[in-house]
């Protein structure tokens, strides 16, 4: 999977770059609108991460140019809240999704997974981890052909951890993924634990899950 990262803040671009390369993507960075369009024209990308405030213009212009071509490339707009008049605006102009800054890298990878899966016509339908199979189209999990009854939230948590396997996912990241961008400051995120506990209980009935770790008092990690 080829990803084009369009971000004028060089350091931020490098962090995203490192993260995505670690996750197995092949990435390239562009810092300006001109660079981005040049890269887009000369190479084939599956997805573009597009920052809106670029030094030589508005990221929307890049998006519009891209959408005028036949390219099926997925575009995720990265924006600071307040730059957009409304969330829907970006989607109207042809963005597949967008994330408000600051975003969690793990959230980025989950969104990236979803849009790439979508533009490839949902050919990838299963995720597997240690014998557990996640059926993405109908939110079902099974182990050795035996279905496991999970709630929507438990499934989302499981999928999120699997998509970001080998990484520590903090409670905060998990909470934000499940309940969205809660505006409330210092919202107590312990109630995510209830769902994780239930999820683990259900999985544990079918196979040992020592690969499903609780990392100190901070978060969780699924090891491959």
């Amino acid at each position, binding site marked *: 999977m080829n990803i084009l990262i369009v971000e004028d*803040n060089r*350091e*931020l671009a490098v*962090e*995203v770059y*490192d*993260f995505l390369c*670690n996750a197995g993507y092949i990435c390239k960075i562009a810092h300006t609108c001109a660079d981005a369009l040049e890269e887009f024209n000369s190479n084939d990308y599956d997805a573009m991460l597009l920052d809106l*405030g670029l030094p030589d213009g508005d990221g929307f212009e890049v998006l519009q140019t891209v959408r005028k071509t036949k390219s099926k490339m997925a575009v995720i707009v990265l924006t*600071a*809240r*307040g*730059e957009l*008049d*409304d969330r829907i605006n970006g989607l109207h102009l042809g963005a597949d999704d967008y994330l*408000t*800054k*600051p*975003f*969690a*890298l*793990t959230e980025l990878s989950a969104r990236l997974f979803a849009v790439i899966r979508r533009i490839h016509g949902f050919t990838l339908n299963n995720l597997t981890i240690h014998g557990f199979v996640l059926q993405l189209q109908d939110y079902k999990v099974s182990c050795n052909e035996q279905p496991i009854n999970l709630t929507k*939230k438990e499934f989302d948590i499981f999928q999120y951890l699997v998509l970001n396997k*080998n*990484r*520590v996912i*903090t409670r*905060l*990241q998990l909470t934000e993924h499940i*309940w969205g*961008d*809660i*505006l*409330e*400051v*210092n*919202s*107590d995120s*312990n*109630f995510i634990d*209830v*769902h994780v506990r239930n999820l683990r209980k259900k999985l544990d009935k079918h196979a040992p899950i020592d690969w499903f770790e609780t990392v*100190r*008092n*901070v*978060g969780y990690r699924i090891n491959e």
Partner: protein
Amino acid sequence: MLPILVQNVVYHHINNSLLEKKKKFIEHLNQEEINDFIENPDDSTETFSEFSTLHNEFLVLSHAPIKPRHKNSTFSNDYRKIEGEENEYRILEHHFVYGGQGYKLEIGSSLSEVNDLTFVIRFFILIVFVVILLITFLADTFYIEYLLKPFYKIIDTKIRRVNEPETFDHTPIKAASRDFRELDFVLNQMMDRIAEVFKKEKQFISNVSHELLTPIALLKNKLENLLQNESLDDNAFDKIAGSLKTLDMLKKIINNLLLISRIDNNQYEANEEINLKEIVSDLQEDLQDRMDDREIHFINKIENSFVFLGNKTLIHILIYNLVTNAIKYNKPEGNIIIEDGFVGEHYFIKVKDSGIGMDESQLEKIFSRFARISSDQEGQGLGLAIAQSVAAFHHIEIKVESVINEGTTFTLWFQKAN
């Protein structure tokens, strides 16, 4: 003031006629006549008198000692009894010397008639005044109304109906007077300046979000990547996790402040149909986990399907903030009751908790930014400030009632449905 003026004029007039009479009398005066007047010259008290038949005038000539340097003529008001009838008279007293003999001449003119006359004059003036006053009042009312028509038009179209500078109507108001055209022009100018300031603030908000949130994004991503480092010891791990939490707090504070300023800056549209019943049941689903965590019972007693125009995202935030507030300050195993209804044509929705409650001084500041109800509770106290802004944006009135240890009730009062 006026009666005195009238009196003075009348007296002046009488004085003049008295002097005229005196002059005529003195001119035609000769010894014979004096002798005719005064039959017995030896008796100084003997006088000559002449009266008009109606007793409105009299003339008295009498002997008097010669008083040199005495003012020749003086005027006075006095009562005199003439032929058994007492009347008030204006009297001219004149001393003169004729043939070596001093005389005193008194000519009087009755004031009773004059008094009657001044009364009539005063009455007449009063009526004239009242009529003039009435005419002026009516003329003013109509004429001023006509004159001020452009003024009220300016107030109505240019000031009262303008909520946002962008919607300001720049068409000049037709006015006959130059002052109002000037006022209109200056108002237009002022509105342009305000619009400029609004635009700048929007720009500023946008800049702040970009310039502050990008570095936060950078820090957050760096720390997230750092957290994956296997060589981290436990202490470092905890510190990084702690920093991520602080960073998240910072992000939320900025986002909350941006939200408030965007609402106050009218950057949201309010044209979506909102069904409060749906919003409340959506919220219940969203917040069920948090309520379960504290074993709080959510009792939804909404009976009406009240629909109004507004901004769905903002109304969602408003109710969300009230409910999370009710969770946060509730007692474990407490209740949150949501109910609605109508008082007259006004719809209301109540969020009632069975929490710790607040006293008067706490109630006063709950809507101010960064206020919190008790010091041991977490939260940066922007939730209710946002609720207030959203409510004001939608012309909804928020009322709070609270009893310590019994709970707090927030009531949202909606405007009449149109």
